[in-house]
């Protein structure tokens, strides 16, 4: 049983079945007008049932299979994406305070350093030119509002 739970298809299937159960529970709250034909719950419940069936179709062969799976996630490989996500979240949080040009400049500097750029000339040039170019293009030329 425990070895089966290590299989990614079983994990995904169980997660999706639980998620579908929660969707059905929430969707039932929207069924207020008697008839199911026009009910706002109809498609969410129907699609959740489809997800449950498909999840079972994924879990059962995976349990029967004797093949060992190689780990899909390696925590070592997750460090860089986690750093990029954290930095982007920080960038978004600071955008309303620092405004686009300054926040983007800082974001580009830190992200390039995270990704391994060590030449300060490149870092300086890109982190200044790109935000200015985007500002000129979007805000001035196209009249698009920037964050």
């Amino acid at each position, binding site marked *: 049983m425990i070895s089966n739970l290590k299989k990614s298809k079983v994990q995904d299937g169980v997660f999706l079945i639980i998620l579908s159960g929660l969707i059905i529970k929430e969707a039932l709250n929207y069924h207020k007008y008697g008839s199911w034909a026009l009910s706002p719950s109809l498609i969410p419940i129907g699609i959740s049932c489809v997800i449950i069936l498909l999840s079972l179709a994924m879990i059962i062969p995976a349990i029967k299979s004797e093949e060992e799976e190689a780990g899909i996630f390696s925590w070592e490989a997750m460090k860089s994406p986690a750093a990029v996500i954290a930095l982007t979240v920080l960038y978004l949080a600071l955008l309303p305070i620092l405004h686009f040009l300054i926040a983007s400049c800082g974001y580009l500097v830190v*992200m390039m350093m995270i990704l391994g750029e060590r030449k300060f000339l490149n870092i300086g040039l890109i982190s200044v030119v790109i935000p200015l170019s985007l500002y000129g293009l979007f805000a001035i030329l196209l009249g698009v509002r920037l964050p």
Partner: protein
Amino acid sequence: MLADMSSIITLPFIGVICLGAVSGLFVGSMPGLSVTMATALLVSITYTWDTNLAMGLIMGVYVVGVYSGAITAILINIPGAPSSVSTTLDGYPMAKRGKALLALRTATIYSFIGSVIGLIILMVSAGPVTKLALQFTRFDYFLLAFFGLTTIGSLTSKSYVKGLLSAAMGVFLSTVGMDSMFGIGRFTFGITNLQRGIPIVAALIGLFGFSEILIQVSKKKTESVSVAITDEKVSTMKILKHWPLGIYSSVLGALIGALPGAGGPVAALIAYDQAKRITKDPEVPFGEGAIEGIVASEAANNGCIGGALIPMLTLAVPGDAVTAVILSAFYIHGLRPGPLLFTQTPEMFSVILAAGFIACLMILVLGYTVAPLLSKVAAVKERHLFPIVATLCVVGAFATSNNFFDVWLMIGFGILGFIMRKREYSVAPLVLGLVLGGLMDDNFRRTMSLLQSSDSPIKDLFLSPISMVLTLLIVFSVLSNFISFRELIFERNKEKK
């Protein structure tokens, strides 16, 4: 009609189409900037212009913008437009194998062919196709969307079940937001910004743009994402030998485009799926850089332009998002799309066709001259490219609605796409489910409501010729995938023995 066209084609008319084409090339190739958004901006800019010039500019952006979505799809694996999603499946792997220029030329030539064939079909068969589309019931639209989702399952190379699960999750996500019939907020959990539903552009940028950055970063420089244009020699004859598939996909794209609501993404994905079935022995397997994948996808999504204009011009029903914006441009200029257009202002049909054909030529001109230069963006080192693309993702997600909530959603979809791709789920079915879910929800519920008063619901549902054909296509699509899956198991068992 040809006489009308010759009187319309003036120097300023050609000039604005060229201007629109260059803008379309830029807009379509920039992740986060959509042709729909550009067209909407143009409607507000050009409402004081002469009608012919305004339509010329808009058609230039539309035709070339749809094509140029392929450029970033090929070079950086981020489709510039939703209709180029299926181009990424083979375009990017082909570029990574050092054949970026071949991929770009293929996209250019078959976008041109697709656009021309689409416009010819618009010219000669607007009437008959519109009559057919008029016969579609609500249930037929549901079946059509359902068919689109069952075909996309086969786009996932590893598992059909995972493809269907991804599509089903997309349909569920499409139900988030205000219900159009009862005004009930579904799955919004009190978040006001979710009342308008999941914004497609933010989801698209997150799933294809931000998740790609995360995937590449997690690979720890084992492979480079940057694809440079090399000095490879590209034989046009080699590209043109796929003309039968190109013509077939163009016609398919135009016909699907003529069905209101279907649009370029559906056309391209169905054509891609068809190409997989038709092409018995591709030089390179599909999903790993097959030229046939690019041919089918690009011919179909550009063929869709002419098709999408058929119901828009003759019925005032837009075929896709861009034609919905063009429809509003017609009203702003005092025109009446629909049957009255052909009686009151018949020259407008010629204006649209003339602008479309000139824009097609601009695809070739820009595709051969400017498009390869845009690859400089992709030739940048990944430690320089990723921060720039991430900034573009933020800007693009914000620009569509001027709302920070969309940017947060984009990040969320980026993380979701990253997890899905790590666990070998394709994100393309989720996007299609998200796009088609609303259409399915609305049409299915209205059909069920009508059936309540029917004496023979099964007969009403399935015995019309269109419903029968669509149902058979769905059954065939599902069964063919499971049969091939069984064959795969059978072959594996034989190998074990």
